[in-house]
């Protein structure tokens, strides 16, 4: 970067990252957002809280996750790809980092219950897991469409003692699950924390979730140095709301690395969207001529979201990060490629980032470049869906 701006700092006092972010919620939820902001700031500057958070991540969530050089893929593509292995974290994705933090915060605020939205089910499973560990009651809202394509995750949540509520309004996917969780939060805000799953929603969520995911970036920056890479040329992550991307970008925002977010083509908010207000935030959204939010479409439930976190909208606007769409058609190929060459079955979400790297190697990514891939999750949850797509079973 030629200018001296530092990126990925705290938002301003109104929760803005440039023109994006803020707090667009019904008055009923404003006090809870204000309370949460104070509680988060207080906890995040309390060494005892940070110590507890790090201890749980180490002893329970399996951190630090390794960085794996992807040797055969690198050889095939003529670049050097390193994978940050969030698939090896407990529950199989990066989502655990955020929920460990938020559930500890829930207890600290004296609340006894959490609610969450989920798309692919990963955030729901992670929330149910972290809630079980602390004895918090847990209810997860999930679009009815997603309860079908991710039925095993529904059962996992139930095994973990959570209640899963299928959401039948609107497009019956992630955005509607967020609406329903917000509506529910209005009725129970005094004893319940809304454990939002990505860097979206009203302030302080986008900032808080990024902070709770920034461990991905900090670990990988250290681990790459150990592998002899001072600064990678590219850092690549898939983007639904943008939490795994924000987490890994955090470690490299003020380096020379090019930051790449990969969105599902059917939910490419940066490329096809315009500024708008949804789910408590001003960000980039896919919307109609009259400001109706359009339904996203993706092979992966976790990227099926018509918006993007406000900090990403800002990073795109400021030219610090780049966001590209990847269509469903190349995602399965990427999933198979990584499985066969590296012995890692990635989540369908993650496969979008793999597909972008595969497509752009030798093009946007010059030969010989070093590329850090955030391997945000494992593909076990998607195996049944992939089988039916590949074999028609």
């Amino acid at each position: 970067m030629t200018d001296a701006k530092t990126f990925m700092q705290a938002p301003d006092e109104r929760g803005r990252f440039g023109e994006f972010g803020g707090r667009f919620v019904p008055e009923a939820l404003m006090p809870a957002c204000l309370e949460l902001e104070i509680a988060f700031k207080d906890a995040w500057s309390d060494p005892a809280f940070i110590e507890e958070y790090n201890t749980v991540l180490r002893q329970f969530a399996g951190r630090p996750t390794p960085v794996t050089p992807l040797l055969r893929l690198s050889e095939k593509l003529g670049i050097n790809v390193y994978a940050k292995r969030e698939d090896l974290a407990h529950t199989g994705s990066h989502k655990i980092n955020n929920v460990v933090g938020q559930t500890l915060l829930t207890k600290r605020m004296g609340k006894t219950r959490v609610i969450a939205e989920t798309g692919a089910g990963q955030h729901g499973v992670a929330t149910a897991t972290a809630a079980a560990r602390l004895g918090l009651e847990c209810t997860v809202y999930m679009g009815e469409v997603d309860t079908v394509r991710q039925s095993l995750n529904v059962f996992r949540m139930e095994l973990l003692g959570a209640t899963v509520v299928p959401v039948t309004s609107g497009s019956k996917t992630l955005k509607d699950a967020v609406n329903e969780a917000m509506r529910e939060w209005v009725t129970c805000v005094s004893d319940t924390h809304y454990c939002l799953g990505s860097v979206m929603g009203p302030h302080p969520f986008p900032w808080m979730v990024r902070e709770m995911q920034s461990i991905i970036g900090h670990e990988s920056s250290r681990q790459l140095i150990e592998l002899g890479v001072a600064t990678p040329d590219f850092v690549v992550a898939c983007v639904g709301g943008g939490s795994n991307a924000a987490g890994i970008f955090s470690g490299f925002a003020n380096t020379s690395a090019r930051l790449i977010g990969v969105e599902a083509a059917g939910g490419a908010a940066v490329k096809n969207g315009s500024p708008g207000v949804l789910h408590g935030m001003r960000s980039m959204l896919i919307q109609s001529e009259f400001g109706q939010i359009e339904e996203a479409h993706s092979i992966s439930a976790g990227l099926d979201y018509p918006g993007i976190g406000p900090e990403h909208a800002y990073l795109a606007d400021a030219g610090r990060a780049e966001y590209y769409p990847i269509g469903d058609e190349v995602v399965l190929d990427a999933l198979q490629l990584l499985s066969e060459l590296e012995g890692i079955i990635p989540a369908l979400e993650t496969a979008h980032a793999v597909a972008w790297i595969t497509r752009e190697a030798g093009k946007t990514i010059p030969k010989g470049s070093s590329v850090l891939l955030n391997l945000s999750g494992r593909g076990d949850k998607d195996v049944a869906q992939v089988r039916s797509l590949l074999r028609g079973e």
Partner: protein
Amino acid sequence: MKPLETKLRAVRDSGRKALVPYFMAGLTPDWTQHVEAAVHAGADAVEIGIPFSDPMMDGVVIQEAALTSLARGTNLDSICADLAKISVDVPLITMTYFNIFHHYGLERSIGKLTESGIEGAIVPDLSLEESGPWHEISNSYDLANIFLVAPSTNTERAKLLAQASEGFCYASARMAVTGKSSDEGDAAQVVAGIRAGSDIPTYVGIGITTPKQAKDASKIGDGVIVGSALVQLLIDGAGPGKIEEFITSFRLAID
């Protein structure tokens, strides 16, 4: 003082409790006749809902009405064109989510609304903290801004919201989204919070579905807002006659 507030203060000064029904614009082709029927039966102002795809503050009834209306092709332009057909002598107030106006353009929205006879706006997801730019423009157009105060609002915020409200202040009777409810609610506490900050007319809404509930609420506030119960009737196909009957039952209860 914005014209809406002058009119609503006059209603209160006359000793009358205000009755404010909510309609979803564009729900049926003849929706404007439904508004007229309600006014004929004694509504003192009417809330005109503009449908939004993601109504975060609304329960299932208004969600369904919004989707039905959107499926009919309703948008801000078509609503404003329809509004030209309404001839009533009570104020019209719009209620919708901020993205509708954000996307259409703030100044363009406010110009269009006021040109179409809208005198006030309730935008539940436009928090006090985010309302500055909208407020500034609406001041030069005589559009009144109405804020909600919730049971979770503390006294300090309630005061600020009451003072920022124009026309009336919306007392949310309970911690809930729009829809049915049977509990007693917290209207008394909310109204007291508003009155500590301002003598603006204060109307109670959210979850008021029966004449009995309206009667109780009208003893606490200066008026009542009735939404989902009426919208349910309309979804079930009620015509002007049914609507007059419904409004009359509420009118009798609060008079």
